């Protein structure tokens, strides 16, 4: 069956989140995925101008029980209910599923809800007993960060990229975060500080790793028609797509590019635009090499060229392609792609204050992980 033309048929009508920087100041054991998700849901509802009774679909992630969440939010009989794994790759998938549900009429207004209490709960992302396996743990191998370290080491070997290249990206994202009152890490970073920072898994340093912090995000998706009657201007979903990269390890010798190519072909065709027409990009940065591999995988620059390409202000405010304008996961907040979606919406609405990209009309979201996903959104 041919892929249907869903371009501009659905829209994001509301976004909401919790504070990030303020919550990072102090751990609080009473905070959990439900309370954080609920607060984000209330804020998204308020932002959209919709009523709770309008919600007839819910898709959540990192929230253990959909039933408990819906009871707390008073969503009694939604026509669509699902909970996705607590993985960052699921944020883009949640939006894709919501758009499909709205497009087919299986639901009219879908709330996508995410809550993350990793900071208060003491998440370590690598030391958990359930991560022990026979083929990696006996050698001390663990955590997706180490897999990205393996891929970046290989990339440097094959293409001559460098540690400083990641530094350029880290500094740029931190600069954006300094213009974001809600960001967790707002103090500007210098190359000297970056290069002297400690290694987590060589060749990656602490600044190449995402933060661990608490927060919640909610996105409300409805039809383009209905979104026009909501409080804020609609953000239309021009295109969305995913392609998985199911391999035995988190690292893959092809850098995930085969899957990225499938997604890129789908979203650029569906949207009718190419990389050159994207005004700003929100690119999943669980670890900074993921951004570099994505820039190359989606054709913003040739393979192996990302290190040179991002220099000279190209990815900063006023540059050709501002990247991760909120500060991303490494400086704003590790909301596993969810806050990057919120930032995309706010950039398109012109709500980003000091860090607002001028004349921002088209934004691309990209997440490159064992399931690659992307959307192209417009105002």
């Amino acid at each position, binding site marked *: 069956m041919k892929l249907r033309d869903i371009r501009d048929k659905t829209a994001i009508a509301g976004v909401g989140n919790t504070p990030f920087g303020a919550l990072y100041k102090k751990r609080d054991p009473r905070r959990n995925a439900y309370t954080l998700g609920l607060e984000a849901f209330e804020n998204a509802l308020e932002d959209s101008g919709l009523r709770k009774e309008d919600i007839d679909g819910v898709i959540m992630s990192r929230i253990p029980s959909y039933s408990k969440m819906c009871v707390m939010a008073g969503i009694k009989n939604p026509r669509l209910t699902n909970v996705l794994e607590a993985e960052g790759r699921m944020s883009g998938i949640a939006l894709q599923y919501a758009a499909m549900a709205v497009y087919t009429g299986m639901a009219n207004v879908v709330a996508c809800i995410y809550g993350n209490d990793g900071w208060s709960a003491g998440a370590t992302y690598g*030391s958990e007993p359930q991560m022990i396996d*026979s083929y990696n743990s006996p050698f*001390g191998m663990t955590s997706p960060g*180490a897999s990205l370290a393996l891929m970046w080491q290989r990339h440097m*070997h094959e293409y001559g990229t460098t540690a400083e290249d990641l530094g350029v990206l880290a500094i740029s994202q931190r600069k954006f975060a300094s213009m974001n009152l809600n960001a967790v890490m707002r103090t500007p970073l210098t190359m000297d500080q970056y290069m002297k920072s400690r290694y987590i898994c*060589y060749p990656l340093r602490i600044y190449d790793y995402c933060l661990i912090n608490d927060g919640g995000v909610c996105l409300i998706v409805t039809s383009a028609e209905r979104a026009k009657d909501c409080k804020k201007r609609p953000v239309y979903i021009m295109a969305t797509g995913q392609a998985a990269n199911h391999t035995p390890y988190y690292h893959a*010798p092809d850098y995930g590019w085969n899957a990225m190519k499938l997604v890129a072909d789908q979203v650029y065709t569906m949207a009718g635009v190419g990389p050159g027409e994207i005004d700003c990009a929100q690119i999943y940065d669980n670890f900074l090499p993921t951004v570099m591999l994505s820039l190359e995988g989606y054709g913003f620059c040739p393979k192996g060229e990302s290190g040179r390409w991002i220099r000279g202000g190209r990815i900063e405010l006023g540059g050709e392609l501002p990247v991760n304008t909120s500060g991303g996961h490494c400086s704003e907040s590790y909301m596993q792609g969810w806050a990057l979606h919120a930032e995309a919406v706010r950039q398109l609405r012109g709500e980003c204050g000091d860090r607002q990209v001028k004349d921002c009309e088209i934004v691309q979201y990209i997440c490159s992980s064992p399931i690659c996903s992307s959307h192209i959104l417009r105002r």
Partner: protein
Amino acid sequence: MTQYTKPLPTPDDFDKPYWTALKKHELRMQKCVDCGEIWFPPTPVCPACLSHNHEWIKLSGKGKIWSWVFFHQLYFPSFSDEIPYNVVAVKLDEGPLMTSNMVECKNEDIRCDMRVEVFFDDVTDLVTLPKFRPDGSAKPGS
């Protein structure tokens, strides 16, 4: 002898032959009788053609380092004395990629694409782990 405290494999029904072979200092992996696919980690059927007919063939134990890292962050307390320790991803000559450690080689001498050979590390009475060392470093008679 001090007790071995690092994580150990937990063999299951279908990967037991892999661990049993290592104990005998052989690196064996599954090869599909029908289509010739060699794959790792072990799974019940051939992932290429879903055939149930496979044999555990003995591999050359040779390959090259696809990539490598050093762990500075401590995730497993049992590795605390070795930080920073190396982890390598070895591309075997027969195709599969496997995670391991380099031994008989200084961390700073590890390189991408360097030729390596398997080294059977009897870490406990019951478990042998496949580690790697620079190719050709086996001493005569060992």
